[in-house]
């Protein structure tokens, strides 16, 4: 597959419009993340793609061929879409061994040729060789996660969907699996669509981040674009920390603030330190900036609460949001 195009895809549940008409372009080999708070429509979009829900309107095209099209009355059933999926609760079948769980997609598609080799290869990729005769309940959470991954990729699907796959793991395992998952995805070269509410997951793993809220796609772009040039105040606030020069219109990020004037063109801001937190590698300061509300700034030394300070930034670093956004 070269590309997957989503055009004006929409879905309502009763009176609630879970997904307002959405447009999206997923390139082959890319890692795209749908990011947003719960109830933003990201999971709905994922399930519409998988075919687990039926859209109300719009189109899903793979290389120009419709998978779903309201106008052309095409709706490929779930099992013919040739996707892989990693479920939030893994959804491993408890009555099947690890081998049979992974082999499921191949058997269902009657791809019997070298079935054993392909399954074992997939298990080797996720470092589970030797465990193929185990049953899901005999595996740890991280191992179950990897079986779910192997199962999703063994059929070489055109797109693998990830539905918050790390949220069922504990914090330490989650960080490990995040690194492992992204290297697996890159090594195998699959196209991935990943749903999460965790901004650090989205930023660290993705080629493309799609920020959603209230059923809308607010912005999509590389993690750097999203962070540096948010198109919408919600995006600016949801990802990273934001200091607002003019509320909802002009902002800059805490690390862009300087404690001394570096050139004459620098803008200066006056504020009072309200709170100091030690973060290990730096001190994080919450400042009262009077009209501009609360800001956050970093310093390598502890400053005293109540101090009046002056902060500087070059005018070019102030990001102006699209006022219509």
């Amino acid at each position, binding site marked *: 597959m070269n590309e997957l195009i989503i055009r004006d895809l929409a879905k309502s549940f009763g009176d609630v419009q879970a997904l307002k008409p959405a447009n999206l372009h997923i390139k082959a080999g890319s890692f795209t993340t749908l990011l947003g708070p719960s109830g933003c429509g990201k999971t709905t979009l994922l399930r519409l793609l*998988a*075919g*687990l*829900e039926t859209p109300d309107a719009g189109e899903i095209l793979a290389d120009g061929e419709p998978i779903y099209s309201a106008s052309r009355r095409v709706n490929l*059933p*779930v*099992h*013919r*879409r*040739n*996707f*892989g*999926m990693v*479920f*939030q*609760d893994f*959804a*491993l*079948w*408890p*009555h*099947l061994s690890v081998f049979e769980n992974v082999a*499921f*997609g191949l*058997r*269902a*598609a009657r791809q019997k040729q070298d079935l054993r080799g392909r399954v074992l290869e997939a298990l080797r990729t996720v470092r589970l060789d030797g465990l193929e005769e185990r049953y899901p*309940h005999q595996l740890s959470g991280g191992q179950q996660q990897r079986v779910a991954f192997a*199962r*999703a990729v063994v*059929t070489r699907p055109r797109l693998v*969907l990830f539905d918050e796959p790390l949220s*069922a793991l504990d914090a330490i395992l989650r960080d490990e699996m995040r690194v492992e998952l992204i290297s697996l995805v890159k090594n195998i070269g699959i196209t991935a669509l990943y749903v999460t509410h965790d901004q650090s997951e989205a930023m660290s793993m993705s080629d493309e981040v799609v920020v959603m809220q209230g059923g809308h796609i607010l912005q999509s772009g590389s993690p750097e674009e999203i962070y540096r040039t948010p198109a919408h105040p919600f995006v600016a606030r949801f990802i990273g920390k934001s200091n607002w020069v003019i509320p909802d219109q002009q902002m800059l990020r805490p690390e862009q603030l300087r404690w001394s004037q570096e050139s004459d063109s620098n803008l200066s801001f006056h504020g009072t330190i309200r709170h100091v937190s030690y973060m290990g590698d730096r001190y994080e300061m919450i400042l009262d900036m009077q009209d501009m509300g609360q800001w956050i700034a970093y310093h390598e030394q502890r400053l005293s609460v109540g101090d009046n300070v002056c902060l500087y930034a070059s005018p070019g670093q102030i990001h102006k949001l699209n006022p219509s956004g």
Partner: protein
Amino acid sequence: MKKSSVRTFPWRGGSLALGILAILVLLPLLLIFWTSISPGGRLDIGAPLKTIVNNRGLLEVLLNSLGLGVSVIALTTIFALPLAWIMAKTSIGRHRWLDVVLLIPFMTPPYIGSMGWMLFMQSGGYMEQLLPASAAVTPYFFSYWGMVLIMSLHLFPFLYLLLRNSLLQIGGSLEEAAAVHGASFAYKSRKVILPLLLSSYGLGALLIFVKTIAEFGTPATFGRKIGFYVLTSEIHRYIASWPIDFGKATSLASVLLGVCLVMWYIQTLISSRYSYRLVGGKGMRSKSKTSGGLAGLASWGYLVFLLIASIGVPYFSIITASLLKLRGEGLSWGNLTLNHYWELLSPGSPGMHALINSLGLAVAASCIAVILGTWFGLTIGKASSWRQKLTDLFSLLPNTVPGIVLVVGLILFWNARWMPIPLYNTYGMVVLTYVVLFLPYTVQYVKSSYGQLDPALMQAGQVFGGSRIYVFRRILLPLILPGMAAGWMMTFTISNRELVASLLILPPSMQTSATYIFAQFEQGAVPLGMAMAVVSVGITTALLLAIEYLNPDRKRRQR
């Protein structure tokens, strides 16, 4: 953690509880075995089987029971499986009230259900009056398959609930995962749904089998009419009617007990080895297809057919029979009267005596059962020590063992020549029998209430200065009270309608509502009997509905 909770509430007297249970439950059962293996003073372990195999009549009775069990499994499956599918997979399942309605057949005492069907199908019955052409078919109803039908219509809700719950659990992401990874509907059903469903089906089928061969009501009414005899009805015959033969009765009871225990053993094996924890996290969203058109119509049709057969027909017959002025004149508005109710409920009538007697016995039995059951339930706690496990096992045994077997054991025990306590043939004996039979309900409810309590609640009570008794009274008791109330009402309800124990244990000249209904139906004062059935089922059904709201498991079940 567990240790400390036990230490906080040391239910001393654990041994005493065990001792009481041994006397109430275990010894009577052992006595059955003992009597059956020592015919004429000689010890012979194989004696009960020999007695049966050497007697063609008894062997036939055993085979009848086993065959009936298998047939009822088959028919309940035919009823329950499509229904479970409909309720789990289509939008019809959103009608929660259907679940309560579907419990009615199961709550109806089987002898009353059978009587309803007999009144409906007998020659000149309501079926022929409503549809004269059916006279050609109705005689065939009074056969083996008619009996299988009646019993299946009574038991299918049980299998249905099991299957529906496991379909709902499978329905979430496990099924979606299969579809996403390329499985068509047929492939998905074969490889994922059926295997996962099979273990709960196996459990359900075994329980249906046990309940069928242990049932007394239908064989005693319908079975007797068509001349089809099974273990329970024969045990009753050898004990209650001349010539009394305790040897044969205990042999049959031993075999029945043995079969049931083997089935329960297999059931525990299945549930420990082949059942899977299916409760997932967020993936539990089960999608229900909106069922319109032909499929929806067929689903509703099937549901309505089942409801008519399992509730409509028996209740129509019972209520009609209780209202008819003259049996000969048949169904017409002018032929209806409430006179039978006035006669039944008039002060001093035999019916009123039986009703009050039943209520009195039930109140006494349920009060004692709640006290004992709560004590045992708290003693068992989380069943960590062997003594607690044994207490757990013994106190639940009356639910495992067919009622009639336990009753035979109690008779042997309390009527024994060496028994110093003259309880047999008194009012107290009836109360004791009900208590023993229905103890498991209170134990279960209290155990589950208690199990959900964090021991820290009681520890906190002690930390803040409460004495042990104060903590019990102010913290523990209020928290387990719903469980106790549910146990009380359950015991009250079932004691009220219990037939077999009442038939065998009641002192002469005493009647309960169940024996009254039974006797009136046999002797021909059908309208009075049926009026009593309506009154007794009405009272108890209202109470059972109340239990639904108090059951401590309810919230978990509705997950």
